[in-house]
């Protein structure tokens, strides 16, 4: 894992590494996401060709998107994060052109968190109706009729 962290810190200038006992975890600047993702996928030392999971997370003060990546050839994992504090118009790069599964993970995140993805080919709600108001998995979402919390 230290070896992979060393490789990643060379490849991703400006990334901040968090301590995570399970995976190498890097928080990358939002503007560089697509460039870094392309590097991670194609560099022969990393070859992250499989996007396992892509999740939106709301921690009240910040919204983030977490990418769990795995290499099917080199058998290693890493976690990439992008974070924003903008709750009104959060926007990140789309990585659908690198991993086809990202297109639908991103639609789900847009549906639940209202995070927009630049260059996404078809950014519509995935599960909820098109006229649904609000983003229900955000912590500040209030629904007085269907109370879940």
């Amino acid at each position: 894992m230290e070896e992979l962290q060393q490789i990643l810190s060379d490849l991703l200038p400006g990334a901040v590494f968090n301590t995570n006992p399970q995976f190498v975890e890097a928080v990358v600047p939002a503007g560089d996401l697509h460039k870094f993702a392309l590097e991670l996928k194609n560099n022969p030392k990393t070859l992250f060709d499989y996007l396992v999971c892509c999740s939106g997370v709301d921690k009240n003060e910040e919204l983030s998107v977490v990418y769990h990546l795995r290499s099917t050839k080199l058998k290693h994992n890493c976690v990439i994060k992008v974070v924003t504090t903008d709750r009104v118009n959060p926007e990140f790069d789309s990585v659908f052109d690198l991993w086809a599964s990202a297109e639908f993970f991103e639609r789900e995140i847009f549906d639940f968190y209202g995070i927009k993805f630049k260059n996404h080919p078809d950014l519509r709600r995935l599960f909820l109706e098109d006229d649904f108001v609000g983003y229900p998995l955000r912590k500040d979402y209030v629904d007085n009729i269907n109370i879940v919390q």
Partner: protein
Amino acid sequence: MIEKREIILGENEPYIINMGPQHPSTHGVLRFELSLKGETVFKVVPHCGYIHRGIEKICESDTYQQIIHLTDRMDYLSAHQNNEAVSLCVEKALGVEVPERVKVIRTILSELGRLASHQLWWCAFGMDLGALTTFFYGLRDRERILDIFEESFGSRLLHSYICPGGLMNDIHPNFQKRIKDFIIYFRKKLPEYDKLLTGNVIFKERSKGIGIMSLEDAISFGVTGPSGRGSGFSCDIRKSQPYSAYDRVDFKEILYTEGDTYSRYKVRIDEMWESMKILEQLVDQIPEGDYTAKMKPVIKLPEGEYFQSVETARGELGVYIVSKGDKFPVRVKFRTPNFSNLFIISKLAIGHKIADLVAISGSLDLIIPDIDR
């Protein structure tokens, strides 16, 4: 004078029909928006969300023991594996080591669940292609597994039996004997499946060369489980990241490289043989001991982020828990296998007939509540 003309629907203008949400071959409430030329499909847009229950949101106001009961309702044919995924994630976060007895029983249950699930898939897949007899053969055998489940933990479909720390209660004294009886029984019955369907000429014509998925597509779309392994994608979590007792059993990861409907079918049939092999190795090896580790009544996960993958009957289920040290999680994300397996259908079905679309979606083995969560 009447002029004779031939009109092909959709030749000049798009001809769109909706397949579903109430359609028997979508196995649940899923709608495909099909663009057709005559009977040939040239565009498929899946619409999901008809059975969306907001499980991930509900989890944020539930304790970890309560979450177990929701995970059954996602992929109801892999209930044990879903329970196990959350349990393993919580145990990993707490650093709890479960007793050996629990590990072995969990592995046995996962494999029994996989067998029952593949049996039901086999019945429904045959029925999708017009072979109704398979439905009776498959359900006849699946009934025996459900009886084993019912005897030990009272429920046949949604068990909620594996919980953080171990198991809800101890197994029934008949458990091992009934499994051994079942294996003897099913080893005789599984060749019948091959006689009835695998070797059938009509079935082969309907499935060979239909819906070919390349290895690159499988990896890019994240198609895991038997569907991915039919394209040669080595994605078995039981082999690559062994959990519970999978590190001590001997079994093969089934891989086919053709990537068509027939190879996805063959993977599942061969997996049933492998599951029985695992069961035979473990059923006499259940060690004595406690059925649960000592757990606090209120589980509070230390602050951090945890990810755990398990292999369900349909592919890789990932559980991602973000905790702030509270008894409720901040975020629970389920990376469900069916969600990732679904969308490749837009690519596979192009240029095939509607009836082949049914065969392809059947071979992907979709469970809709697992897509919508």
